[in-house]
């Protein structure tokens, strides 16, 4: 009886508390509207005291000179902080942005753009056509999502053909030549050519070159409902990939997530004559004392160039900045010709600025030249959030093709089915 009574009084207390609840805040919808107006009249925006930039780890050597000249030109102080671009940057912005500690300008890999735009972490950029024209078309396309521009490209990378000059004096021009050479060189734990084609990132070069595609591009936007990974070209590409594994040219030991390290180890030990890899691998090859050459990927048996995936790192203005106008100015400044050159000289990252690509500093650098050439044939990785559903099923298909567990056609059909189900389940139509 008494317990019941105590319980009832407690209930009354709770209800009393809840009844008192309610938004006694000022109507914030108005401030939201004024924000939009501010954006429209951005040109009259007052100069901020400082801007904050988040740069990728170990890349601030290229940022410092650009910041200094920006401070001199406009008198706005710029601070920077290094964060791992692949995941930390986005995660940190998610937390710090809404609480007011976020950066004004961040750098992100372009395949995250769709996601961060959906979450409203970065904002659209208003940039003159004269500025846009200084960059390569593909790199600008990578910075667009739903037809709107969300950043300016900082650097590009794409896999290229790297060969050990001691084992393979000259780079073959076609995959058929390479195939013949690999047949000859692969014996006694020595290998002629290895590419991680069980990884969709590398395999897309073959599948894309044979006519497959991830999402069909229509009017500058990617169509998530049209997945072309099991069309005739893609299956042909998959069959071509299987050939390299089934004939023993690629060892089984490179299949799977840890295969990349094995591949690098083989090349750096001089047991592998040539490899398909990205420019990030150059340094460790140099450190290992390998005398290597770099060219664009050899052409496929159908005469087409490999359509490798291109990754574009870009500068973006966050949605949390109080000075969108000056942040945009800073992004333009960081990517201009002069600073792009400094970036290449200090970090070896290749900026997709047309004049810099044609500049002797790049054309005289074998690696950079090869990457720039291969970039012409490359396609940017799709940057819509649905791409997240492609990697795993595609990897599963390619792995089973590589191990011979599945027939190419069947495996690709399965992958597309899974991708479509995943997209329908996890990405409701807009």
């Amino acid at each position, binding site marked *: 009886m*008494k317990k019941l*009574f*105590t319980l009832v*009084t*407690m209930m009354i*207390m*709770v209800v009393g*508390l*809840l009844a*008192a*609840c*309610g*938004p*006694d805040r000022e109507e*914030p*919808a108005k*401030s*939201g509207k004024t924000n939009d107006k501010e954006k429209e009249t951005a040109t009259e925006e007052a100069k901020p005291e400082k801007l904050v930039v988040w740069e990728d780890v170990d890349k601030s050597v290229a940022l410092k000179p650009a910041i200094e000249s920006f401070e001199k030109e406009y008198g706005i102080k710029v601070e920077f902080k290094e964060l791992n671009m692949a995941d930390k940057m986005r995660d940190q912005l998610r937390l710090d*942005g*809404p*609480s007011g500690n976020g950066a004004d300008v961040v750098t992100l890999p372009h395949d995250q753009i769709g*996601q961060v735009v*959906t*979450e*409203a*972490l970065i904002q659209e950029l208003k940039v003159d056509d004269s500025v846009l024209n200084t960059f390569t078309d593909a790199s600008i396309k990578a910075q667009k999502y739903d037809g709107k521009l969300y950043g300016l490209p900082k650097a590009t990378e794409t896999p290229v053909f790297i060969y050990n000059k001691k084992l393979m004096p000259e780079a073959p021009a076609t995959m058929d030549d390479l195939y013949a050479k690999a047949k000859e060189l692969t014996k006694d734990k020595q290998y002629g050519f290895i590419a991680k084609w069980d990884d969709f990132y590398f395999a897309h070069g073959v599948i894309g070159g044979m006519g497959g595609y991830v999402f069909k591009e229509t009017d500058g936007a990617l169509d998530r409902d049209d997945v072309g990974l099991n069309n005739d070209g893609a299956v042909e590409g998959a069959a071509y990939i299987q050939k390299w594994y089934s004939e023993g040219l690629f*060892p*089984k*030991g*490179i*299949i*799977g*997530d*840890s295969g990349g*390290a*094995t591949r690098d180890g*083989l090349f750096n030990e001089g047991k592998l004559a040539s490899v398909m890899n990205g420019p990030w691998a150059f340094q460790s090859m140099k450190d290992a004392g390998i005398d290597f050459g770099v060219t664009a990927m050899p052409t496929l048996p159908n005469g087409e160039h490999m359509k490798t995936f291109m990754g574009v790192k870009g500068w973006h203005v966050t*949605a949390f900045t109080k000075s969108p106008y000056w942040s945009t100015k800073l992004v333009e400044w960081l990517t201009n010709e002069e600073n792009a050159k400094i970036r290449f000289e200090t970090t070896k990252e290749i900026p997709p600025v047309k004049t810099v690509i044609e500049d002797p500093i790049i054309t005289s650098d074998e690696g950079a030249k090869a990457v720039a050439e291969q970039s012409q044939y490359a396609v940017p990785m799709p940057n819509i*959030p649905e791409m*997240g*559903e492609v*990697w*795993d099923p595609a990897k*599963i*298909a390619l*792995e*089973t093709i590589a*191990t011979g*567990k*599945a027939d190419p056609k*069947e*495996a690709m059909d*399965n992958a597309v089915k*899974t991708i479509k*189900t*995943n997209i329908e*389940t*996890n*990405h*409701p139509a807009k």
Partner: protein
Amino acid sequence: MDSIPSTTKTPIIPPLKTKHGRNAALLSIIPGFGQFYNKQFMKGIIFLILTVAFFSSFYSTLNWGFWGLFTLGTIPGVDHSVFLLVDGIIALLVALIGLLIYAVNIYDALNNGRKRDRGLSLNSVREQYHNLLDNGFPYLMISPGFLLLIFVVIFPILFVILLSFTNYDLYHSPPAKLVDWVGIQNYIDIFSLDLWRKTFFGVLGWTIVWTFGATTLQVAIGVFLAILVNQKDLKGKAIIRTFLILPWAVPAFISILIFSGMFNETFGVINNGILASLGIDTIPWMTEEMWSRVALILIQSWLGFPFIFAMTTGVLQSIPEELYEAATVDGASIWQKFRSITLPMVLFATAPIMITQYTFNFNNFNVIFLFNGGGPALPGQNAGGTDILISWIYKLTMTSAQYGKAAAITMLLSLVVVTVALWQFKRTKSFQEEDTM
């Protein structure tokens, strides 16, 4: 809790004529007034001040927090649902602490009122103070730790529980959008959507095999080696023990990565060195589901046995020698001594920790993820051949940002782990009575 008398039992309960107990408890609805009624003014004032202080300092926290918890925000771009959820949980915890003090206040008034009903005298302020020190001292000492516990342990658990009832995913991500309460929709989806359900049971099956296989093996090896090394006649025990502890000393993270290289089909030392010298053909450790599973169980046994070994060694050394001597006198065989003395003693002392080994392996993400990333891939399936529930969830959520569903599956996982752990702990003798021996 401050004035609960330590012995209120009187042999003869006098008939109650007055209703001081009820009156005091009723008046205590406004904290302190019950105490005033009992003429304990000092205590009454303290309760009253506490109440006023509580509301004046926490009013906005509670108001904002509960509003946020119920609505999760109303204006996209301004209200951040996840932050509101956090504020709401804090408000909830603060309110619970407040309610606790409130309950103490009513209970105290009721108790003292009853004492008056029975004609007993009430404690004076001085007595109350001593009472508080004597009876309340343990509570006083643990309260800072307990408060910390609430925010370090209870808070995250509440967050996950609540998150599993929201639709938090990429398309309902603040600041762009608001998160909404969706009830048990996430749980329904997990069992009704083909994509999620299909693989669920396959993965669950392997998770159970993995948990029991790997853990039982590591426990068996650990206990066996400990008994072996503990033999009286063995020389150089210290060195042998050091060697056997080594796998524990090297960070598992590094060991697993090295194992992953050693098990490589074409280049790994296991196929090329060890098995080749025995004349055994190459075994597809990384690309055949069955062999990957075997490799993983072996690796986990290697990683896990030193802990069991160290623990068992400690227990073995504390078994009195007399027991064995008496057994020898009675003519017991070595096997009988092991069955009737060693094993029960070891299991009695270590069972709770052995059980935690099972729950640990049930969620052993590291070894699965680092060895082969849950691979090899299986055609027509969403999870890899060695994915256990936790690594599969990781993949599903990291690729599609389904935070709400991830929380829901985490709840299901915890349900399994908690149930098994509770059930086993309750059956373990060492948790039932402390003085069985």
